[in-house]
């Protein structure tokens, strides 16, 4: 008898970064790295399991802003150029690394980049078609997210929140040809009342942080081990803390194993400068290229790291997946006695953990499904499958919370970034004001209002506030917020004065073409 059900949810999201004004833009590499290191490896493994008949059930967010970038012809073309250059470098590396302990890794990169290029061309440059195929086959459930990953609890009004959700659901229908059943709230950030907005969009489930469930009202009888229904009828699945620690923890988590690939040794820094320079950004600054040849080794200095062995790391990933599943089975057998029924373990992670930060992550996922396919105690399900099979749950309103540090909103609201909110809130009010004033706008005015909506959505991306807190690309995040506020304000002033400059609008439309299907009336 099944002791428990496991839901694995990977959240794939990137902020919308697209700069046609420059031929090479540094921050676009976030997308290119993710495609090569995370998305293609995960989809490849799901595809392989489908073809070989291994029972796999994965839930993933493919956020609207990520989907828009993946479907954008300019970014597709730039990715191909990026990948072609990487393949060229990998070819050279395979040659120069012969008869060294690094050769196996060099062959691995060359083969992988070749595979990526072949798949990319076979898909016509749009991997969303691959995602759709896997959805149709039932191995992948895709949930939506906020349109631009806007932080819903910190918005000024339900109108602004509703627009993020409505645009997201429409965009999901555009890319996937069906309506989403579930949503990953941006940053897992929830506040009572948001569930009602989800219900308006006919969304059936979302996810909350562990303490949001435990501090919910009334107390959840099954803790975080069963979903609940909010009073609006939308189900909430709570993150399981035990599975999070086993993967996220840098000290005790699986990714810290000494045989796994070391992130902080990279050819971009280690290679001869003139050799790597053609593959760096035109500014010539050394940065990660994604070809890494050392393993974590242990608590040693970077220069003491030992060569990476892909075969050993692959085996370790398989072992770790087996260990993870055994731990879940033990957890569920214990919980079943307490709960009186099989437990539901929900394990959400950032997708980029699997492949980018933890190179062997995709292998871990594949091995996990291989192990669970024949495991007597654990069954892997998607959230929709779980709700279809178990439709009756306790009514609980989860507490406010997020999965950010300290569990609430502090990462997105603190002295490093609080200055943005007076601008975001003013823009939210102004957008609604204009939408209400012009419910049936003529064509040019409609274009203005739609572009105002785009600028508002883009400035609301929670990534900017997050980056300002962590400081990794703070200047870029600041620039993005300011630029979108500036453009929005310029458009707003023209609309309010009734003096529409079509040329300036066209320039802005060319810079920020996200959500071509948008209708500003989502703000009414």
């Amino acid at each position: 008898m099944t002791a428990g059900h496991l839901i694995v949810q990977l959240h794939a999201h990137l902020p919308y970064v697209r700069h046609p004004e420059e031929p090479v833009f540094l921050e676009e590499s976030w997308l290119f790295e993710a495609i090569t290191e995370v998305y293609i490896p995960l989809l490849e493994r799901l595809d392989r399991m489908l073809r070989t008949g291994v029972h796999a059930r994965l839930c993933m967010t493919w956020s609207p802003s990520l989907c828009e970038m993946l479907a954008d012809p300019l970014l597709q073309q730039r990715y191909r150029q990026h990948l072609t250059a990487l393949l060229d470098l990998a070819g050279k590396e395979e040659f120069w690394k012969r008869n060294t302990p690094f050769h196996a890794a060099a062959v691995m990169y060359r083969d992988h980049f070749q595979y990526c290029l072949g798949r990319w061309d076979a898909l016509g440059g749009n991997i969303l078609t691959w995602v759709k195929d896997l959805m149709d086959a039932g191995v992948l459930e895709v949930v939506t997210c906020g349109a631009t990953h806007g932080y819903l609890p910190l918005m000024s009004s339900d109108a602004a929140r509703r627009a993020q959700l409505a645009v997201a659901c429409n965009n999901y229908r555009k890319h996937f040809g069906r309506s989403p059943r579930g949503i990953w709230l941006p940053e897992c950030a929830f506040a009572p009342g948001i569930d009602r907005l989800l219900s308006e969009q006919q969304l059936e489930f979302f996810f909350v942080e562990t303490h949001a469930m435990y501090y919910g009202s009334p107390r959840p009888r099954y803790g975080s081990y069963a979903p609940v229904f909010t009073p609006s009828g939308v189900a909430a699945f709570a993150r399981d803390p035990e599975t999070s620690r086993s993967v996220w923890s840098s000290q005790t988590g699986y990714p810290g194993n000494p045989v796994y690939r070391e992130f902080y040794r990279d050819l971009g820094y280690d290679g001869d400068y003139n050799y790597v320079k053609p593959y760096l950004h035109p500014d010539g600054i050394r940065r990660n290229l994604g070809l890494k040849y050392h393993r974590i080794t242990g608590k040693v200095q970077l220069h003491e790291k030992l060569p990476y062995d892909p075969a050993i790391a692959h085996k370790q990933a398989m072992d770790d997946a087996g260990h993870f599943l055994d731990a879940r089975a033990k957890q569920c057998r214990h919980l079943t006695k307490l709960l009186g029924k099989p437990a539901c373990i929900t394990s959400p992670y950032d997708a980029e953990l699997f492949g980018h930060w933890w190179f062997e992550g995709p292998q871990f996922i594949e091995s996990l499904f291989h192990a669970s396919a024949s495991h007597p105690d654990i069954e892997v399900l998607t959230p929709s499958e779980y709700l279809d099979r178990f439709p009756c749950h306790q009514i609980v309103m989860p507490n406010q919370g997020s999965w950010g540090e300290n569990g609430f909103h502090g990462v997105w609201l603190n002295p490093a970034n609080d200055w943005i909110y007076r601008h975001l809130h003013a823009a939210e009010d102004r957008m609604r004001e204009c939408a209400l004033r012009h419910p049936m706008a003529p064509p040019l005015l409609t274009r203005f209002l739609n572009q105002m909506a785009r600028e508002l959505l883009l400035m609301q991306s929670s990534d900017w506030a997050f980056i300002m807190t962590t400081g990794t690309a703070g200047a870029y995040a600041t620039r993005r917020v300011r630029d979108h506020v500036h453009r929005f304000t310029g458009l707003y002033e023209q609309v309010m004065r009734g003096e529409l400059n079509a040329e300036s609008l066209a320039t802005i439309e060319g810079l920020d073409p996200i959500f071509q299907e948008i209708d500003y009336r989502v703000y009414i």
Partner: protein
Amino acid sequence: MLPLSDLPLKVLRVVAQRLGITNRAKLRKTELVDVISQSGTGRVTKAVNDTLSEDTQEPPALQPKPQIPTVSAALEQASSSKPVQTTAPVIGPHGHPGLPVPESYGRDNLTLMVQDPHHLHAYWEILPATLAKARAELGEDGLPVLIVHSRFGAELRIIDLKVGSYYLCVSADTTYRADLGLRGHNGRVVIIAQSQTVHSPSDQISSRSDEQWMGVDTRFHEFLHMAGLDKGTLSSADLASQRGEWKERVLSRQDLFNLPSSASVPAGALYSSLDLLSSKNLSSEALPKKQ
């Protein structure tokens, strides 16, 4: 493309104009080259090509002369009802800290935001005219204060208006509202702005342990749709009227009494398969006899 430094100064000024660079008339050639270079290779190339393919004379000034104002200047002009052609640059060069954002939104505002169970963030904007009016009413400059209202009463915090924001220590699971005002030396407060209401999250397990349960079955929506009842709730009068219409249609459709399969229902028929099935349940006196 020619190196920028090889282009004549007048051409560089036109290129700079196309790129939305202000104060170009005051820049020396080397400075112009520097500023233009920051606009990104793609944009610069296009601007140069467009310029060289046209008359290199700087276009004559338009009437009224186009301004490239800061947003705050634009707001000021808007408030004086003079029309302004907004041609502000919409993109800054790479590495630029970002385009100007409004210094003021032209309205008095106090907003509370939840940070965590024990902290709120307040930000405000108070217009100079509002401040002056409050001081006049108070009869003195007064001390700017934030008054925080909750079930615990009203707490007063002294603030620096110029800072524009403040972090408050609060209690969990409590509703708060705030006023911003000026306090006179005699304790009188003139309120300038009021915030909305917020509720700080709980930081512990709920004391409620009563349980309610819900079953949501998506298949039910399918049944509802088949029954034609998913468009909204009908009053009993509406239902009675619908039943009447249905009966009329049934009585005029002799072919219904052979109860064909749903596939043979004529195109445009108004009946769902459930309507056809339910016709079997009509009492015999309601149905005309088969001919």
